[in-house]
């Protein structure tokens, strides 16, 4: 991972044309140049040149980014703005360390999920006291008015049973790895759950395993796996991100896997690409080889099913039938832009028996942006509302996407605009169809 001073060439590639202003979601709601990609690049450049210090204003502005990559996509000079932002945030971490709460969370995440499970389990005892029910379909609950927390904010409840805990007690654990075999074993696939799937939406993980088994994959879920490290990296905390990446390499070692997959777009970006950024320049050839091998096996679950496992031969798309339910699909930034995956989830939706109605700006960021949602909830929700309006005006019954993070944010956004559209992961819909149900399996 390059530090800011090593990105001088990239910074200099910016010609200040302003093209990125047209797509930058944080600029779109803050409407100040410093919140635009061009502004942040200019500030980073001034910092590297020694014209400004690591001031509070500078830090505030580099925090105003959801790392969606929309700027990089339109930039004719390939200025890697997200990398620049991460490196700039890293300057802060290097000089001041992480804020207290963030560092406590990072410590927790850096242990196996079981540790966090315990901590969160204790916290969840208090759940009924902290969360109040809102419409049941939304699957979210409104937190009681707490100081500093918007009372209209939806806070996702922790899952009744965390995914990895459930798997652990399933009796199908072989040497620390949950194994679920397919009837006709063709390939060996490792499954990476990720924090949101594990703690909040285990349904998505369970559905993923089910679908993978159905298309002939034996699924291996190492229980030692930890957080993918993207929250840490997003805060500029390279050190923790590195150590998480290493732990994850270890966790999946020795299983003779053909593929490693995840149903979280953000984890996918981490596993496929960021692990390399983090570990390749470590100057240690052995780790280098391991990480190359690991990253080479990673596929997002949508791409894996469609391109590698031939799911299309097993369940053909239910085309033509106009009475199908209508779904609209949101492209997660970390899937569409970071991984270039856009057709596969749509194909899977057709296979799940749905008709797709595209929304305006399907790849406009939902506004979650990792910790951006926590530190800048108001702006995050302003962005989220635009997404919600785009979704709502399609008239679709279902909003599908392929990232558990986007799902939480979109639910919150839809709640804010008073919409009743249901938000689900593509894989849940697919699993529903395979089970013979109508394709919905979300509470």
């Amino acid at each position, binding site marked *: 991972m390059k530090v800011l001073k090593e990105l001088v060439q990239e910074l200099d590639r910016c010609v200040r044309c302003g093209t990125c*202003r047209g797509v930058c979601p944080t600029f779109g709601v803050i409407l100040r*140049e410093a919140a635009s990609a061009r502004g942040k690049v200019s500030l980073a450049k001034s910092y590297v040149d020694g014209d400004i210090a690591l001031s509070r204003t500078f830090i505030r502005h580099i925090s105003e980014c959801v790392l969606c990559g929309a700027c990089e996509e339109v930039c*004719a000079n390939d200025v890697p703005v997200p990398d620049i932002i991460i490196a700039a945030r890293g300057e802060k971490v290097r000089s001041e360390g992480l804020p207290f709460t963030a560092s406590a969370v990072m410590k927790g995440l850096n242990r196996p999920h079981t540790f966090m499970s315990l901590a969160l389990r204790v916290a969840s005892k208090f759940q009924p006291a902290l969360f109040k029910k809102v419409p049941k379909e939304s699957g979210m609950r409104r937190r009681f008015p707490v100081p500093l927390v918007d009372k209209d904010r939806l806070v996702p409840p922790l899952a009744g049973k965390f995914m990895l805990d459930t798997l652990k007690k399933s009796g199908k654990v072989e040497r620390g790895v949950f194994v679920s075999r397919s009837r006709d074993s063709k390939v060996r696939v490792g499954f990476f759950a990720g924090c949101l799937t594990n703690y909040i939406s285990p349904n998505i993980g369970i559905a993923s395993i089910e679908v993978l088994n159905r298309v002939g994959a034996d699924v291996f879920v190492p229980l030692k796996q930890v957080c993918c490290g993207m929250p840490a990296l997003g805060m500029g905390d390279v050190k923790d991100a590195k150590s998480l990446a290493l732990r994850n390499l270890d966790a999946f070692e020795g299983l003779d896997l053909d593929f490693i997959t995840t149903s979280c777009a953000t984890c996918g970006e981490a596993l496929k690409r960021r692990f390399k950024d983090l570990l390749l320049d470590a100057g240690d050839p052995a780790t280098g080889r391991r990480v190359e091998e690991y990253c080479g096996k990673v596929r997002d679950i949508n791409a894996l099913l469609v391109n590698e496992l031939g799911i299309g031969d097993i369940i053909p798309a239910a085309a033509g039938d106009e009475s199908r339910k209508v779904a609209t699909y949101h492209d997660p930034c970390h899937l569409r832009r970071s991984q270039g995956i856009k057709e596969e989830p749509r194909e899977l939706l057709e296979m799940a028996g749905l008709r797709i109605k595209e929304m305006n700006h399907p790849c406009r960021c939902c506004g979650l942006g990792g910790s951006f949602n926590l530190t800048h909830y108001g702006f995050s929700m302003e962005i989220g509302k635009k997404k919600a309006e785009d979704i709502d005006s399609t008239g679709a019954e279902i909003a599908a996407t392929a990232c558990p993070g986007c799902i939480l944010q979109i639910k919150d956004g839809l709640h804010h605009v008073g919409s009743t559209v249901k938000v689900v992961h593509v894989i849940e819909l697919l699993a529903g169809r395979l089970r013979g149900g109508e394709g919905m399996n979300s509470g």
Partner: protein
Amino acid sequence: MIMDRRDIEKLTSIVGRGNILTDKEERICYAYDATNQLHLPGAVLFPASATEISRIMTLANRQGFPVTPRGAGSGFTGGSLPVEGGVVVSLERMNRILEIDEENLLAVVEPGVVNGDLQMAVERLGLFYPPDPSSMKFCTIGGNIAECAGGPRAVKYGVTRDYVLGLEVVLPDGGIVDTGVATIKGVVGYDLTRLFVGSEGTLGIVTRATLKLLPLPEAFNTMMVTFKDVVDGAKAVSAIIRSGVVPTAVEIIDGVSIGCVKDGAATGIPDGVDAILLIELDGDRGSIDRDAASVKDLCLENNGLDIKIASSKKEVKALWRLRRALSPSLARIKPNKLNEDVVVPRSKIPDLLSGVRDVSEDKGLMIPCFGHAGDGNIHVNVMYDARDKGETERAWEAVKAVFELVVRLGGTISGEHGVGTAKAPYISMELKPPVINVMKDIKDLFDPKGILNPGKIFQCHRGGSDEGP
């Protein structure tokens, strides 16, 4: 110039605490535009109304600090750079579309509205706002008016000037005036509206504009034609124009420019192509098909290699995206460019392009050319590395040679980007002294203290004078 603390306090009371920025970090973000030069303002203001702007101007006039209006900062000639310090007045907050009058085909907007947002809003109602600078997704209507921006569609539909019916403007002394009409015709008094259009924010700050709309054409047709020789491409353009077909747009991209976008994106353009024409037609289905057939023939007659017609909205978008990515992507050749947007009579485009090729060879510099061939407006980009003294010198010589060529061919040295600071040293190559004097008198009349956007059009911050370099 450092701002006086008391002035800052007064300004704060005018716009409100949240709408003035004075931290260095914030000022850095309003110190540049697309020329990529830096001039720090003393403060940045975000007024919400003509009244606030009027109070700002009154104070500035009394205290004598410069005021520089700013839209999106996408200008190519330094118009929004506060070269003499003072305050930047950003119009970004005044970004409401106030009215779209479907019966009279008018829109009333605040200056901070982004061109593309207006286009989308009117197109939803089946209406059409033709001016389409390549920067339309982010530049503002205020900036468009101040620069008289044009775009590919200018061939058929003209430029911003042709769509501004009336303006509300705050004058340098703080007075607020309304100019123009809300009708298609109107001849009462001098045409002040036209005077403000293209005045680069030196005569007044536009706070509201009444714009003319058209009905949205029934259909569009976009095609891409490749040529082995750029001069053949230029000849095809002349032939199309002569034939009587009026295309919406005819854009030309030369070989060097093609290389830049090819580098950046998978475009599917084969090797050995030295020019591309992007041609757009609009109208009703029948006439479009007829026009497309004759355009095709004319291109083939002029050695066109391959003709591709976009068959879906997506393909059309992809073709235009390629065109819009051009300008910023040139940085792949050399870090610095002198970006000139010259215009010649359309029949002279082949002469211009071959002349530029000679200059390029003579000076040993890459000079990619592309632009609005349909109206003779070609962007000539002299690429150089500012760290190399000799190269920099040759770049300036090349620009001068190009301008001489343009004037010789009966053209003008800026079609749409304006003069700003970048072209100030050259205006005397085109304008005779009495004309420059009339213009300066007009400026003095409006702004006797020279506080509104000083250093633009007539003066060169590089230390030159209006007499040329």
